[in-house]
Every structure is written in structure tokens, then in C-alpha cells.
């Protein structure tokens, strides 16, 4: 939908006065960021989103501040205390070589978020220029770029990551970069369709008439006003990448041992499941909570940024 003057002028008023919370507004594509910002309805980030955001912040803090926390050494093995149950020294017990499960789970945040950061970084670094170029250039370039995006849109990321590990050896950087790159077409498509209406908006026409360069218009005017869906997609992808990182670790194709990693720790402890289920369940619970939190933050952002 291409916004015309009337829509840009009247839409926010109509939204703010006529529609109750949860009601239907205009499609987000017709509302550049600033105009949407005038909408005074209470944010619908939601309770789940707030809980999720709190958990994500806590996990991020834990991954940065793990060495400062009063935790046992995640690598220290106490072979006399293998697969022990919870105790005062080891609140969640120990794993099959007597390492503290709680400490390893907290340190596991690091490789999890490292993997997520690499994946999201790779996805945005490729997807943003891709989508912006397609939406901004239009014509044949758009057609070619979008056909390439279509080709890779549904390629199974985990399988590609395994293929890359087979070629380059286990490395979270290579595998998660591959996952990010194969996810870039999704971002490119979303950004392209968000760019299309914005590049015809009045403020862009004004910038053009003032002689602002195309690069500057694309980067400073169009991109910031079309980033909403990309942000939502990035958070949703982060939730998925967290699971992929853990899955690679679980298959022994992620962070090399003995570093703490949720997936690898689960796999290691699983061989002794009957004796000590906690050592398998706890890191798995961390993956679940992390992935769920990121996904509800994504849902909340979708409600706030992309009201429709």
C-alpha cells in the first residue's frame, strides 16, 4: 500500500481516537516510524513479553558476568563426586565427571549467545543491504535479487550448518555464520516490502528534491523507517538460532569440549540419564527458557512495532 498525504496526515488521529486497543489499525507498511510514534495507545508488549525481556536481560548479564558470580569453576572436575545430586556446594548437582551443573549452565549462556550474535550478525549484515538494494533499486535488480532470495528461503539451516562443519571442522563461528547467511533471504524479503512504500513517502520525495544523494536517502531516510519488521524478524531468528546452536552442540558439532555449552552438556549427561536426569534436564531447560523468552520478546515487539 502506498501512503498518500491524506493517509499520513489523518491515519494517526483515526488510530488514536477511533480504534480501541487491539482493534485494527492501518497496515504497518503505510506508517513510517515517526508517525506511528504519535500513537498514544498503551504499548501492547504484554506480560509475557515483559517476562521474556527480563529473562533475556538476565541471561545476557549472566553470560557477561559469569566469572564474577559466586560459582564453582565450570571446568573443575571432582571425580569423587560424579553424578551427585543437589547439595550445598553444588545446588543442581554435578555431571558425569563431577563438574558443577549450575555453573556450567550459567557459563553455557556464553556460547549460546555467542552463537546467536554471530548468526543474527551474519543474517543482518547480508540481509539488510540485500533487501534495501532490491526495494530501492527496483526493476531488474529487484527481480534478480528477490529470485535469489526465493531460492534459499526454505533451505534447512541445520543441514547446511552440518555441511559447513563437515567442510571446515567444528566451529561455532563458521556454522552459525552459515545459519545466519542462509537466513538472510527472509530479512531481505521483509525489508524490501517495507522499503517499497517508504521510498515513495513525501519526506523521501522532499529529500530527493533537495538533492540528497541516493546512498544517503537509502541509509538515513528509508532504512530507519523500514526497520520495524527486520527488528522483529531478528529477535524471532535469535530464538531459533539459540536452538540451532544447542542442536549443533548436542550433535558434537558445536563448541569443542570442555567448554560449557547447553547442547553439548545435555548430550554428555544423557548417557547417564537414569542415574542423574538433572544434568540432562537443566541445560535443556535453559535452552527452552532462552528460546521461549526470545520468542515472546519477538511477539511483543511485533505488537508494538507492527500494529495491524
Amino acid at each position, binding site marked *: 500500500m502506498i501512503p498518500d498525504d491524506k493517509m499520513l496526515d489523518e491515519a494517526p488521529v483515526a488510530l488514536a481516537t477511533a480504534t480501541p486497543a487491539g482493534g485494527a489499525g492501518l497496515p504497518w507498511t503505510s506508517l513510517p516510524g515517526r508517525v506511528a510514534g504519535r500513537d498514544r495507545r498503551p504499548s501492547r508488549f504484554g506480560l509475557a513479553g515483559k517476562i521474556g525481556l527480563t529473562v533475556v536481560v538476565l541471561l545476557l548479564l549472566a553470560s557477561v558476568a559469569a566469572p564474577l558470580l559466586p560459582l564453582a569453576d565450570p571446568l573443575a572436575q571432582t571425580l569423587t563426586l560424579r553424578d551427585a545430586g543437589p547439595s550445598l556446594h553444588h545446588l543442581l548437582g554435578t555431571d558425569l565427571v563431577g563438574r558443577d551443573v549450575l555453573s556450567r549452565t550459567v557459563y553455557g549462556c556464553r556460547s549460546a549467545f555467542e552463537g546467536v550474535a554471530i548468526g543474527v550478525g551474519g543474517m543482518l549484515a547480508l540481509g539488510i543491504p540485500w533487501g534495501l538494494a532490491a526495494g530501492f533499486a527496483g526493476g531488474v535488480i529487484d527481480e534478480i535479487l528477490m*529470485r535469489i532470495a526465493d531460492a534459499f528461503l526454505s533451505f*534447512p539451516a541445520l543441514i547446511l550448518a552440518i555441511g559447513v562443519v*563437515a567442510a571446515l571442522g567444528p566451529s561455532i563461528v563458521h556454522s552459525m555464520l552459515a545459519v545466519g547467511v542462509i537466513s538472510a533471504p527472509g530479512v531481505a524479503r521483509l525489508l524490501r516490502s517495507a522499503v517499497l512504500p517508504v521510498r515513495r513517502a513525501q519526506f523521501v520525495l522532499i529529500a530527493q528534491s533537495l538533492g540528497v544523494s541516493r546512498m544517503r536517502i537509502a541509509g538515513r531516510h528509508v532504512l530507519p523507517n523500514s526497520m520495524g519488521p527486520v527488528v522483529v524478524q531478528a529477535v524471532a531468528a535469535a530464538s531459533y538460532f539459540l536452538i540451532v546452536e*544447542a542442536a549443533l552442540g548436542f550433535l558434537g558439532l558445536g563448541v569443542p569440549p570442555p567448554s560449557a555449552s547447553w547442547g553439548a552438556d545435555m548430550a554428555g549427561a544423557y548417557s547417564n540419564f537414569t542415574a542423574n536426569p538433572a544434568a540432562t534436564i537443566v541445560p535443556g531447560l535453559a*535452552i527452552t527458557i532462552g528460546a521461549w523468552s526470545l520468542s515472546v520478546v519477538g511477539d511483543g515487539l511485533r505488537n508494538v512495532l507492527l500494529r495491524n
Partner: protein
Amino acid sequence: MGRIILRRLATSVPTIFATTVLVFALRYLLPGGPVQAMLGGGQGGQYTGAQLAALKARLGLNAPVPVQYWHWLVNAAHGDLGTSYYSQAPVTQVIGPRVGPSLELIIGALILSVVVGGGLGVLAAVRRNTRTGRAISLATGLGLSVPDFWLATIAAGVLGLTWQIFPAVGYTPVSQGLLSNLNTVALPIIVLSIVTGSFLARHVNSAMITALESPYIRAAWAMGLPGPKVYLNCALRNAVAPVITFIPLAFAALVGGTVLVENIFAIPGMGTEIVSSVSNEDFPVVQAIVLLVGVLVAVLNLGADVGLALIDPRIRNAASE
């Protein structure tokens, strides 16, 4: 109609082409290229320069890269996916027996997702704004965010190892009895279908709610049609489209899921093969599996698009304009 199929076929050719290029390009990621990997990898294999040159010549690696790609593609199309470094057998022989168990898991999980997930989605739409509807919505929300391999370890651990209700590991082929086969695959299939089933339930649910709140359903109620007729004849048709779009998406997701689930339940499918091939540095096998999966997903996407055009005149008309 024929024109739509032809046009869609024409767009899926580049997709499959791009997939093959991507998979072909993987071998150039190998440190030192494919030849060094064959002669013992980057880990200091013992070979002379002459051996290297001879192998290069034999494999046609002196030809320009596009020519190499073409040869590789033609061979692959003829069912020659190379030779396994590890077992020295043709890759097709290594992968062949592995396809069945994986497909059984994936198709089983697809059927279970469509029946249970689709059913729950419809039920939640019919009973929307009631306790049943909210309970289903909560359950599918949970089902979507639980990693399948965590669920698989717990299911295998608790039901298999601790309580011993199901076998925790192993696979019995159908040829040795359907019941014992189902006994080994039931738990993996249930675990696999939880995420995809929840996903489908969500989409069927929203398609059904949109349909149920549309004017033509109101008209059907107003005309005094009985409930089952309104739901089954009028509204349910709208649940078919999300099911068709779901199949290729779910297939791609289930392929990833089976890799993990097969490894947890020790099922001799492509998932266990690809992981053991990675640790054996058996690159051609990994490459072939990635290729197979990529092409299958592209073909399923094509099938879904054609299927949608076949069942939905709105899509058919929009596409032919």
C-alpha cells in the same frame, strides 16, 4: 491452469539450480580443496605432489570450475553422487538404505501433525473464547517453544530408560513386522510432531477464525444451516490452504528435527549418517545428503504452490492475471 503450473515450474528451476550451486560450492570450503581431503585431509596426510596431480587429473579437477560443476551435476542427475571416502562404496549405496527410516519418521510426523495439530486448530477455532480454546492456544504456544531434542531426550530418558515403556534406542524395519516397527518409531514420531503440530494448529486456527467471522458464514447461520454443515462444508475448506503451505515448511523443519531425534533414538536414518559422516570426514556423503534435502524441499515447495492453485480459485485467478 496448465500455464500456472508451467510458470511455477519455470521459477523452481532456478531454485533447484541455486541449491545445487550452493551444495557444489561446499567442497571449495574444504581446506586445500577436495583432493587434499580425499588424500587424508588437512591433518597432514602423507602424499607426494605427483599423487596430488594424478588424483586431480583423474577427478577432472583441472577443468574450469563451471565445467566441473556441470560434470558433477550430470553425474548427480544420473544417480552418481561420488564415492564415500570412508567406506569406498558409492555414496548412493551408503545413503540408500538410510532414506527409508528418515522418510518414515518425517512422513509419520507430518501425518500426526496434520491430524492432531489441524484437528486442535479447528477445535480451538470452533470453541474460541472458551476454556477449551484458550487451553489449546496455551498448549500450542508451549509446544512451539520446546526444542524437540530436549523433549526427545526426556521422552527417551523417562519413558525409555527409566520406565522402559518404549524402547529408548533402536529401529526395527517394517519388513520385520509392522507392530514392532511402530513400537520403535512411535515415540520419535510423537516427539517430532509436537513442534510442527503446534505450528499447524496455530495457522489452521487463525484461518478458521477468519473464515468463521466472515459474512458468508454469518449468512450460513442466518439461513439456519445446522452447525456441522456450517463447520464442515463451509468453514473447513479454509483450513486446507494452511495445511498445504505447511507441508514443505514442516518438511524442512522436520529434516532438522530428525537429525537430532535419530541420533537420540539411534535410528539408522540419514540424520545419524550425516553426523557420523562428519566425524569420519566423509565429505561426499554429507554433501549428497545436503543436496538431497535441498532439492526435496524445493520440489515440495513447487508441489505446494501448484496444489494451492488447484484447490483455491482465488489464488489461481490472482496468479494468471
